């Protein structure tokens, strides 16, 4: 594949990977106490997806969305400051990791409610359709989310209206503690598109070239006005549901299967095959590490929000005691 595009995907992937590792270590160190949904194993799928999209396309994602946000371009300093509950965070510390919002990079909603991003994604796409602004909306969610009502209603409405939206299912084989085979009897999620007469793509998300090709196909379909597409990328949740959570319920053979499919070593090998040298790759990683360390420093040196923040952003006007019984 195109060497520049590969480099782009590699950079996005490693920015996510290094961020994830450093987040885990800062939590381990006790320096930060927060609920963090690790993205280990899902770095590549979203890097390839966002590399195929435009900066001003809309993104809707979930609590497990830091990889999507980074791939889309959310600045790491603002992102980490938000996760650390600082005034300088994307949301002034009010939202936290589950609710990252950053319209400047198209990140319109990050939801903590399973499946709830899909109906909202339709609305963003509907606005683009009416405005004819050429944007598409990418909506990220997991395999478990496809069993909830909002998924179904949204798929049907998107196809009915021919909305420019990509339903990007990152099938990491688990919904919290429940394995795929224990939450549905359908063989894969892509098969569900037929219930709406919608285009579907099913791809091995750990294969960089296949994943990128699928992303490009999905983006072209949605942007061309042909309507929505359901893109299912097979990947693995390589750790527990959130960082630190017990995952003894994951059987050994599954863990072994995952290790063998880890996208990071596979991608590194692909880079080497494309004549990137070990040195170059290590150099890039070092640069990313520096970027992340600076962002961490920025975040941890930032002040906490003031209590007065409770009275703003509830309504357009400030909350005044009495009127609201507050």
């Amino acid at each position: 594949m195109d060497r520049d595009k590969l480099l782009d995907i590699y950079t996005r992937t490693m920015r996510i990977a290094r961020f994830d590792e450093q987040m885990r270590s800062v939590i381990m160190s006790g320096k930060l106490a927060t609920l963090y949904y690790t993205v280990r194993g899902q770095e590549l799928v979203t890097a390839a997806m966002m590399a195929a999209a435009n900066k001003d396309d809309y993104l809707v994602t979930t609590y497990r969305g830091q990889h999507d946000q980074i791939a889309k371009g959310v600045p790491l300093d603002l992102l980490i400051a938000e996760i650390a509950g600082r005034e300088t965070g994307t949301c002034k510390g009010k939202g936290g990791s589950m609710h990252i919002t950053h319209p400047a990079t198209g990140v319109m909603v990050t939801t903590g409610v399973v499946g709830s991003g899909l109906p909202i994604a339709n609305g963003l796409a509907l606005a683009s359709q009416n405005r004819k602004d050429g944007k598409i909306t990418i909506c990220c969610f997991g395999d478990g989310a496809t069993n909830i009502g909002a998924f179904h209603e949204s798929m049907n409405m998107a196809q009915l209206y021919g909305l420019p939206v990509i339903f990007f299912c990152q099938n990491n084989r688990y919904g919290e503690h429940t394995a795929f085979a224990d939450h549905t009897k359908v063989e894969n999620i892509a098969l569900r598109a037929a219930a709406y007469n919608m285009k579907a793509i099913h791809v091995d998300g750990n294969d960089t070239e296949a994943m990128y090709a699928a992303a490009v196909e999905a983006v072209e379909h949605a942007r061309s006005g042909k309507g929505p597409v359901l893109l299912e990328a097979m990947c693995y949740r390589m750790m527990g549901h959130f960082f630190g959570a017990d995952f003894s319920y994951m059987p050994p053979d599954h863990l072994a299967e995952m290790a063998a499919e880890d996208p990071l070593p596979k991608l590194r090998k692909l880079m080497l095959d494309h004549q990137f040298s070990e040195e170059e790759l290590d150099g890039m990683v070092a640069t990313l590490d520096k970027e992340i360390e600076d962002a961490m420093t920025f975040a941890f040196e930032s002040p906490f929000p003031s209590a007065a923040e409770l009275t703003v952003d509830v309504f357009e006007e400030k909350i005044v005691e009495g009127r609201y019984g507050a």
Partner: protein
Amino acid sequence: MSKITMGQGLNRAIDEAMAEDEGVILLGEDVAAKQGGGVFKISAGLTEKYGEHRIRATPISEQAIMGACVGAALTGFRPIAEIMLMNFVTVCMDQIVNHAAKLRFMSGGQTNVPLVIRTTTGVGVGFGGQHSDMLEAWFAHVPGLKIVTPSNAADAQGLMRAAIACNDPVIFIENILCYGLQSDDPGANHVVPLGKAAVTQEGRDVSIITYGRTVLDALEVAGQLKDEGISAEVIDLRTIAPFDEEAVLASVKKTGRAIVLHEAVKAFGTGAEISARINEKLFGQLKAPVVRIGGAFSAVPMANVLEQAWIPNKDEIKEAARAAVKWGN
């Protein structure tokens, strides 16, 4: 002077807003021309003027309706979501409460949701337990939502214009029995500000604080009480939350007696908050206990005899007023 019905007032307000702003769109079941402009015809004629891309008939998918409106609102559109009957908000509370109401706050003010959620309900039409509920108390308890309900056609038009102009989500509750109510035509571009109550009837002895259809009952009762020498003041809140505390307290300070009236179930209803606030702010200044009157403590029954026994009735209001005035002597 020419008259308009509540239905016409609502239709006109939406029409005016749509003419002004391409971003005003309407989503709901059966709302487009092809379906006859809504089961209550509130969107009649709008598809012809603004097109199916702005008046979107939807599948029976309230979560998708609400979510689509939330998403469009995030881009600066001013969507209007029509939920055919209020009981059906129970299938899309997540989008309203976890998203529409909270996105401004959770995003630290980066985004906001200028959304109007229109819905209708009402007891007295024999629709039974799953089609008659008044659930405004739920929404009033959710920071980030405003709740509005008109008691007459002119207010319906003016409040709808204000609701569409509001940069935060507004729950707009219409009473199914009121669509035919007539008012003097308030003319074009009539706006009634959110958060302001109306003193619909001046009085000295007792304040009846209410909203929506029961304003009519209160006014009728106030008229009958006059003949008994009891001067009742009627406050139409118009905006249920955040409600006009100043207006309520001013009235009760004057009369020293308050009756809080609504059609919704009395227990844990909005009347409880209003009563609690009056008692907190006017402790020691009341001549009689604040009385709450509301719907019975059961699902809404279908049989007409039971339904009529369920709704707060005028004799009950009259009795409460008499008792308040007599209190202590």
